[in-house]
């Protein structure tokens, strides 16, 4: 089980959280200009890389806020977490 640091509440056990997929996937500036393939790519395609990965988590059983976590997908190490609006460098 992970111990995840909520940037608001502090460290809590993983069952308090819900996973939200890759972080920093920007909403298209003008979705109507996208082809079906480009739209599907935005909706469904995510990186599946080895190493440090920025992902979203929600503190569902706590403050219910969304935030970001850097997790090493190779080692499962949680490098740090940071608030929405902050950057991966802010992770701690």
């Amino acid at each position, binding site marked *: 089980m992970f111990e995840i640091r909520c940037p*608001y*509440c*502090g460290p*809590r*056990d993983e*069952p*308090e959280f819900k996973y939200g997929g890759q972080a920093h996937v920007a909403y298209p500036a003008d979705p109507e200009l996208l082809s079906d393939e480009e739209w599907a790519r935005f909706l469904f395609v995510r990186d599946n890389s080895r190493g440090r990965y920025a992902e979203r988590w929600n503190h569902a*059983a*706590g*403050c*219910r*806020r969304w935030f970001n976590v850097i997790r090493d997908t190779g080692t499962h190490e949680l490098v740090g977490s940071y608030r929405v609006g902050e950057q991966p460098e802010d992770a701690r």
Partner: protein
Amino acid sequence: MADRAEPLAALQGRINDAAFGGTTLMTVPFVAQVGLRVEPGSAAAGRVETALGLELPEVNRMSESGGRRAIWLAPDEWLVVAADGEERSLVALLEEAIAGEGSVVDLSANRTGLELAGPDARTVLATCCSLDFHPRAFGPGQCAQTLIHKAGVLVEQRGDDRYLLLVRPSFAAYVAEWLLDGMLGLKADAAA
């Protein structure tokens, strides 16, 4: 206020019987609870603090004045609790204070209370909740939203060995069963 059913009435006998060595579980069926959302540090938050006569607490903390308590829920969200029957006056007071800059919602029916108190209260809690309640990590005046197994609870430490758990009425029996399970196990250990 007629026709209200106490969510844990059916378990009352077993809740009473589970007491051991000064550790007790008690139902607190009705608590006035008002959800407050306001930008911390804003003028509206300041007016709320003046109206309640307390400072809106920081993360994982509670502050209290005149029988009313503000419990931290999230960076811009608190639960203001008071004695049963005060919900309307509390809503009116808070609505006037925020003056449209935030939200005030009566949530009194959203959670019911369970109070766990006594020398083994913390040990009972540890049987079903993974949050660290050791005095070095958690003490009187602190609160947390967490889980008792699968059910969400708002835990508030009310004294050295006194905890108030606010849970959704439909999950209250589930939470009470886990607490009773812990109490009966410890009671059996103490008798052995």
